[in-house]
């Protein structure tokens, strides 16, 4: 109990030290490295942070480990005035039991917690399924006509996997078929973008309904002047370029291929902007990121690392 009292009598402020500054520099280098050169700069930064962090921890715990800590003069006086009880056994049986109980408890807790925490977090990031979506034969898509295509990316999940894309057959340049396939996920916060214009019956055209391996696919012809989002008013032109409102980039697009005469949607990618239109479009393509994330300009530094995506 005497030891306990002593702990309370004396203020335990850490000695003045420069180690935290080195630690902070290391962290800064690590973060900058994540943007500029994750492999080398971040490793160096991490190393600096580790070394200085260790030195800092060593300094801060010197007193606990029984080393004489560097003390400022005025505090040294205060310390000298305090009465120290005679030192007992340096490492008593009590202490040993205390440390081993805490240590073993920590190890057991870790063994139990780590896999459970892993199960809580990792499934969202690993083994994500790649989807191929068959939206029907090429002949369903009249050249130059827009279609609102709705389909399920994973029929086993049911309606919750229903998605929409805007598809236009641009005809073939040479022998290569060209399609513009724009995702309807708004680049602001992910609401469903709508075609600004009449569709289907008003045009005197019928919806095309196909049964593919992705279940029922509906192709509804439309004549959009652009695309618009009902949630917060983001507007896009027919190439998906942002024309007004809060979105930070153009609409995402689907990669595609023609398989056995069918149009098959592959993975999605993000787009900063598109120059020209249709088959001549020059698409500035990026890896898929979430809505609201900047992929170009200075703001991209806020998103140095994205979860892996298909």
């Amino acid at each position, binding site marked *: 109990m005497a030891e306990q009292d002593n702990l*309370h009598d004396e203020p335990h402020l850490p000695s003045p030290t420069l180690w935290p500054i080195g630690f902070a520099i290391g962290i800064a280098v690590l973060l900058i490295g994540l943007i500029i050169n994750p492999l080398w700069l971040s490793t160096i930064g991490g190393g600096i942070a580790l070394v200085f962090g260790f030195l800092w921890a060593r300094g801060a715990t010197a007193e606990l480990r029984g080393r004489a800590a560097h003390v400022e003069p005025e505090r040294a006086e205060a310390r000298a005035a305090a009465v120290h009880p005679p030192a007992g056994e340096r490492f008593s049986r009590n202490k040993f039991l205390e440390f081993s109980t805490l240590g073993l408890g920590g190890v057991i807790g870790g063994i139990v917690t780590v896999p459970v925490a892993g199960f809580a977090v990792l*499934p*969202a*990031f690993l083994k994500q399924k790649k989807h191929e979506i068959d939206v029907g034969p090429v002949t369903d898509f009249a050249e130059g006509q827009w279609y609102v295509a709705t389909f399920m990316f994973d029929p086993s999940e049911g309606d919750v996997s229903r998605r929409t894309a805007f598809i236009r057959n641009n005809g073939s340049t040479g022998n290569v078929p060209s399609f513009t396939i724009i995702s309807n996920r708004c680049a602001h*916060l*992910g*609401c469903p973008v709508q075609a600004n214009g009449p569709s289907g019956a008003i045009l005197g055209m019928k919806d095309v309904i196909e049964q593919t391996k992705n279940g029922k696919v509906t192709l509804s012809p439309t004549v959009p002047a652009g695309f618009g989002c009902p949630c917060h008013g983001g507007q896009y032109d027919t190439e998906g370029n942002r024309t007004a409102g809060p979105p930070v980039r153009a609409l995402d697009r689907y990669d595609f291929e023609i398989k056995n005469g069918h149009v098959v949607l592959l993975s999605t990618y993000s787009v900063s902007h598109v120059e020209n239109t249709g088959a001549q479009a020059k698409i500035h393509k990026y890896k898929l990121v979430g*809505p*609201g994330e900047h992929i170009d300009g200075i703001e991209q530094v806020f*998103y140095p690392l994205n979860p892996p995506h298909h």
Partner: protein
Amino acid sequence: MAVRRQPSKAELRRKQAMAAALYPLDWIEERSGLVGATRYFLFRKVPADSGWWHTLGSASLTAFLVQAVTGVILAMYYKPSPHDAYSSIQNITDDLTLGWLVRGMHKWGASIFIILMFLHMGRVFLFGAYKYPRELNWIVGVMILLLGMLEGFTGYLLPWDQTAYWATVVGINLNGTAPIAGPWLAQFLRGGQEIGANTLTIFYSMHMLLIPGAIIGLITLHLYLVIRLGVSSPPWSKEAADLKRADEPQPLRTGLTQPVVRGGGGPE
């Protein structure tokens, strides 16, 4: 000269009945001290001029308890799968006896809980009751408020209608725009790359197990601090702001820089 009256038979019997009724309490008290602890918890001295404003905290607690109880009962009938969620909500509201009432209590009670917490917070702020030595309790209270709002966010998805779905899409994507960690947080909340069945079950688990557990822990800490530090008197009070309970030992350390003041019979 008054002669001391012998207790009548009826009085004796009443005494015996009382003793018999209290016997279980005595039994518990002797073995656990819990009766004394409960009295210590409930029968506290409060400043004479504390009034209705001081009831907002316990009102918030009551609102939380209503949410907990109605939530447990709703969980008996709710089915957290994309196919069944909406129809099970319809079943609760339209078919099950009094289901509309319990769901209504839970739905409106959620707003009442948040509103009461804000009023309680405003009272504490305007009365200056967050000041030393109660700063930590303010911090704990803020954490409860944030978790309460997280309950609102996760609970909003569960009806699984269009409003719920798209509000959650927007909410998750808002989180996703936070610098650096945002995209990872969003993918964790979604339970994968796309919103789907996993999202619903993750939100359900957080809404009914993870966050309420954390809130209960923090409320316990909040109440412990209220009991340890006592209720502060209002700013217009003539009493000193920080009356100590006579039986409470003084704090061992008043601060790192101040001299230590020792009270009387501390436990050491």
